């Protein structure tokens, strides 16, 4: 079954690095989208929900944890799997964002193998 992916990060450089690393992991998506901030992500998800979202935490205007809470209020995104991608690595923060509705966490720096490991369970 075809899968769709959205990458949310305020850095265009990091969005490109994540996209390249996902490709290197061997995971294939039918459609990929990018958003540079939380509001852009919500707008795009409202129009076209995705299966998997990779989301930064430390972003201006709306941080990743706030974005997760808003997405979990959207009926159209109830099946979207959200995996946070961040330099933050404290267990307290990871537990908090998982409790808010995220489905996984990848710490920067990352490898293609890490994406394979964390995203494969959501590809079926």
């Amino acid at each position, binding site marked *: 079954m075809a899968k769709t992916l959205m990458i949310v990060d305020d*850095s265009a*450089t*990091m969005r490109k*690095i994540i996209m390249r690393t996902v490709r290197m992991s061997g995971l294939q998506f039918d459609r990929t989208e990018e958003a540079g901030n939380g509001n852009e992500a919500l707008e795009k998800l409202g129009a076209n929900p995705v299966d998997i979202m990779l989301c930064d935490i*430390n972003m201006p205007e709306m941080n990743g944890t706030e974005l997760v809470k808003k997405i979990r209020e959207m009926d159209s995104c109830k099946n979207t799997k959200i995996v946070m991608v*961040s*330099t*933050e*690595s404290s267990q307290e923060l990871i537990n908090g964002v998982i409790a808010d509705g995220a489905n996984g966490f990848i710490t*920067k720096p990352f490898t293609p193998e890490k994406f394979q490991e964390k995203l494969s369970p959501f590809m079926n």
Partner: protein
Amino acid sequence: MIDELCLNDALLAGAKEIFETMIFMDLEESTDPEQKMEEDTLLGSITFTGTLEGCLTICCSSSCAKTIALNMLGMDSTEEINGEDINDAIGEVTNLVMGSVKSRLADSVGNLEVSIPTVVRGRKLENSLGDGANKVLVKVNIEDEFAAELSLLYRENPEQHSN
């Protein structure tokens, strides 16, 4: 009281990890104490607060910054890249190095809250935290070709210590 040598080691090890795993470039501490920077430089900066407060900076020449950005984006050295993308790449490197340093210092200083990175371009750029601040400066070589400087400007935060 945090040991300056511990901060120096965390800064160097954090930067080496990021350059090796995310930028695919070799970074080594300079053996030349007189190493000088080129005049036209980019300065990436990110602030942090907690039991320590201050900022981490990465300063490199514009040609070094361009090479870093090309490597991060998987682009060929002959491809064109604009200044905005170079600034964004240096900001992201600064953010990544801060994340790596932060995790290395977690046992000794606890959690640090970090800001969004900023990047400025200019000549003879310097950061200051005013009187009473400490500074750790690490001069490095990137790919044996470019001189760059990593720094941590910081002061201990007694309010956080008493909490």
